[in-house]
């Protein structure tokens, strides 16, 4: 089986996902995209013959850190007086 083509496609997908994570307007989409980068990275580790690292990345690097991100976004929304989302807050000029 041609591993090269599959890893190339995975790499392109990962780069597209990281681009979305940097530039998308909505914060929640950015966080989901970060999680997806981790998931694709985990498949790439399997192709690189590293199942231990793949399992760690799937469980910790992609899973638990996404969950912590969402908890923090939720508490930021709760603490804000008007209940704005975290991506709406920084648009206000703070002078």
């Amino acid at each position, binding site marked *: 089986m041609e591993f090269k083509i599959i890893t190339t496609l995975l790499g392109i997908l990962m*780069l597209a996902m990281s681009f979305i994570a940097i530039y998308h307007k909505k914060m929640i989409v950015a966080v989901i995209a*970060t999680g997806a980068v981790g998931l694709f990275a985990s498949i*790439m580790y399997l*192709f690189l013959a590293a199942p231990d690292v793949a399992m760690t990345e799937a469980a910790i690097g992609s899973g638990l850190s996404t969950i*912590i991100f969402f908890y923090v976004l939720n508490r930021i929304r709760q603490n804000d007086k008007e209940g704005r989302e975290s991506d709406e807050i920084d648009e206000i000029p*703070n002078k």
Partner: protein
Amino acid sequence: MEYITITTGFLIILAGLWAIMTRKNLIRIIIGFSLFDTGIHIVMVSMAFVKGGVAPILDKKELLTDTAHKIVDPVPQALVLTAIVIGLGVTALMLAYAMRLHQEKKSLDIESFKDLKW
């Protein structure tokens, strides 16, 4: 194959660095750090890859004879395993700081935290 993955890793490192330096929102900067982490891990694992090597788990009889020429390098993998867990700790800590800063100033914009600027 290792060339492709190492290139991907370096490009993701650059993307993360770009996000850290140009974005204004604190959470977005933390996402940049997270991407940077992932890129470094990919680079390290692809450096450990040996052509034709299999995963360093010896669950078959034929792997036990002359092991060193059949498996990929286990040491960088162990290091990356450690690094991922520490990365989670660092991310959690940074997010806690961001949350605390938002509680103090009601803002997530990095430009509004200039108390230490002279």
